[in-house]
């Protein structure tokens, strides 16, 4: 599901996430409001549901709208996968659905794909 056609404007306030960022599947809170910056960057992410999973050659899609997080401890709840190249993939801490985004080891930046999460009011 390409995310370029989806309008996320309503979720952005002063360049940050207006509402909580939650898991699409179990509603676990990933980021509390106003803790991440909107960023447009093209990045290929393995699909959450794979038809034939192979570690070397997973089915991927290009995602382009992310919530950028500088300090990993900004996350309310999140899982970090084992390292693949320069990357750790992000998952829901509760149901482990993912990748919902990725963590770039050299820059220590984390990116959550807007298309892979839901947005809700603060709890």
């Amino acid at each position, binding site marked *: 599901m390409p995310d370029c056609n989806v309008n996320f404007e309503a979720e952005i306030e002063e360049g940050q996430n207006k509402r909580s960022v939650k898991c699409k599947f179990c509603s676990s809170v990933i980021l509390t409001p106003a803790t991440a910056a909107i960023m447009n960057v093209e990045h290929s992410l393995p699909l959450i549901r794979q038809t034939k999973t192979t570690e070397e050659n997973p089915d991927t899609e290009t995602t382009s709208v992310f919530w950028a997080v500088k300090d990993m401890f*900004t996350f309310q709840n999140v899982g970090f996968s084992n390292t693949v190249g320069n990357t750790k993939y992000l998952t829901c801490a509760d*149901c482990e659905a993912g990748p919902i985004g990725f963590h770039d080891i050299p820059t220590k930046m984390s990116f959550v794909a807007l298309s892979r999460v839901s947005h809700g009011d603060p709890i």
Partner: protein
Amino acid sequence: MAKTYDYLFKLLLIGDSGVGKTCVLFRFSEDAFNTTFISTIGIDFKIRTIDLDGKKIKLQIWDTAGQERFRTITTAYYRGAMGIMLVYDITNEKSFENIKNWIRNIEENASADVEKMLLGNKCELEEKRQVSKERGEQLAIEYGIKFIETSAKASIRVEDAFFTLARDIKAKMEKKLKEASNPPKGHQLRASEPQKKPTSWLSRCSLL
């Protein structure tokens, strides 16, 4: 941007493979995710945020990532650990017997004052139980640590376990800070003031 938390605790989950250290509600109700990319590469650690007595606490929880298959865990893995959750499966006698080995491994490799807790996990049905609750309690008493039985199907107890462990670490830390500041009567030093020589344990804590 200002830090959004008060404490950061590094916690480890230790126990035999297959005791359900990583198992959570979702995997039981919907095993579709077991075939995904993420379960293939595995989870390294999780970050969770809890509120404890008005303080925001970040827990960084590490799983042994398969190292436990070798029945020993390296010192590097224990470095900086402030709390260890010892996990066994109540439907697996062997995993319970091995807790003693894990405690020995911890004593040999981890910091002496690491906070420990015993967790009897129930990933399957009660009918398959091999280890009674009493035996779990008895073992915990033997080692002077806390004990809780949890079920992945009632994730609330798992959360309780982490709260208990975090609360004990926080209490220990605050006690140490109080001792370190050695306050003369009447005037109390603030915990955030730099200490002349923090202990190795304290230096690993993020006190903000």
